[in-house]
């Protein structure tokens, strides 16, 4: 299945800003984090199609996954 992955802030370093990937059916956010060598601690904020997700959240064809390190501001 095709999933679009967006990375932000320090997670982009030595990786990418946005890319499409093919993953096996049943892959979770955690599988994708492992494939990108991002620890669960680093992936502090996860959105799947603009909704908060967790490392064990399942993904489906066409999902947009956005991953942020711990950030703040205001």
């Amino acid at each position, binding site marked *: 299945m095709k999933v679009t992955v967006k990375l932000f802030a*320090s997670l*982009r370093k030595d990786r990418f800003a946005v890319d499409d990937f093919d993953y096996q059916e049943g892959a979770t956010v955690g599988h994708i984090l492992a494939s990108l060598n991002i620890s669960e601690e680093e992936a502090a*904020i996860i959105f799947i199609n*603009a909704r908060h997700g967790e490392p064990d959240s399942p993904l489906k064809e066409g999902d947009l996954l956005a991953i*942020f390190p*711990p*950030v*703040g*501001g*205001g």
Partner: protein
Amino acid sequence: MDKILRIDMGAAGGPKMQVESLGEYAGLGGRAMTSSVVAKEVPPFCHPLGGENKLVIAPGLLSGTGAAMSGRLSVGCKSPLTGGIKEANSGGQPAQVLARLGYGAIILEGKPQGDDLYKVIINKDGVKIEADNSLKMMTNYDLVVRMKAEYGDKIACISIGPAGEMKMQSASVACTDPELRPSRHAGRGGVGAVMGAKGVKVIVLDDTGCKARQPKDLQKFREANKKFVEGLSRHPVTGQALPAYGTNVLTNILNEAGAYPTNNFKTGQFAGAGKISGETIAELETKRGAGPTHACHRGCVIRCSGIYNDKDGNFLSKQPEYETVWAHGGHCGIDDPDAIAMLDFLDDTYGLDTIETGVAIGVAMQAGVVKYGDAQAAINLVKEIGKGTPLGRILGSGAAVTGKVFGVEKVPVVKGQAMPAYDPRAVQGIGVTYATSPMGADHTAGYSIATNILKSGGFVDPLKPEGQVALSRNLQVATAAIDSTGMCLFIAFAILDQPDTFQSLLDLLNSFYGLELTADSVTELGKKVLKTERDFNKRAGFTKEDDRLPRFFYTDPVLPHNIKFMVKDEELDSLFDW
């Protein structure tokens, strides 16, 4: 910090000053000081620009000490924008310098008899007040250059630009940063108009010859400060993300969350967000020979500020904050970072609240005055405000007035004050804060984004109404307390997540003042401040109907979540029942 400087600008024969003891205001700082003075001394039904209103300027309890992050200044009055009590908060140097000079507050009161414009000069030898009409309608940046030429480069300035002199409801009070740029502002609620109504252009502070304030227990204070700084460095937000990207790191995150108000709250995602994001701007700043890491006051260890150069490498503005990038950017459909930096500079130099100004322009765009996305038109509109043309005066009166003048139905304000950069439908917790804060729509008053979006201090689902009132209540209470210490609110990211860092904040206060404050006493302080502010507003005629969002947030769903604001009125009304 054991005295108050009171200046009666309306005294017969010219301004009359008096230095008095703290009296009943002893033990108060920052927002607790400004709100207590306003609540006690300002008649709630007075006209905000009249002689009965007062402008209160107060450093926090820890300002002027060696405590890191303690450089926040509170500016309070009855707001010309909301008609309620106001505390607008600023970084920059003045809080530290004013505290070292020994002042717990400056109170400007009365109504000037003539139309002279004054400067107030405060140093270790005392206070001087001089009329200087050559400063009339001078911009903040030009004014500070002039003050530096007259009084040297050891000064810090608190000033108003032309907007404050014209008594515009979106006028700010500017504070200089360590390099004497008037780039940090007590922005909200038209505090600059009240300073203008008092006829004071600038307060020049020079603490040469003054020492840092001395703690009761120096050794404990030093230890506490060391742990506090270590805690801030250890936390990934205050130690890494804020210095690397500044507050504007939020553009991408709010956009990905579908909570980024675009084209006057029409939708929750902006196609141009990436072009004006913190990541993009930090890279651009570095490439142009400036950078995203800068302290707005001495003693700041987070350093979330930055410097934005133009394409030729010359200073254009300080790094525009997230709220500014949104108000002048996504809210207006503008995705040009250079234009946004120029708008930031113009706001700073004319002395305008960037949120109110940007939102007013977006409302004008909704009315068709100029087109969404037209950056040059937005720049021209801000210049109209600076010149005080009739159109400029309308926009400078803020979003609510602009909406009325141009017949716009959907105007994002609460208590007349423009909403900041988070759609309250897609982040229901911030909607509760916008609705209920005594300040009007103010994100800093109870920053639910931390927990709704950033997962700091736990997690409450932003798309559901459940739990939002309790979240906003707790944050509003904590914020009112932090705003009284002089501490930058960004310490909250670390103290929400790290109990030992919260303890070191308590230790700083306790070792400095010889107190035994606990977490509970901090909560009590916050509640007391909020109660004082709510009570003022009630006496000024506010009712529970004022604690509501504009109607369209209840009737028009916003994409991508297709969601309305769902927190019930009765729940909003229970926020202050503790």
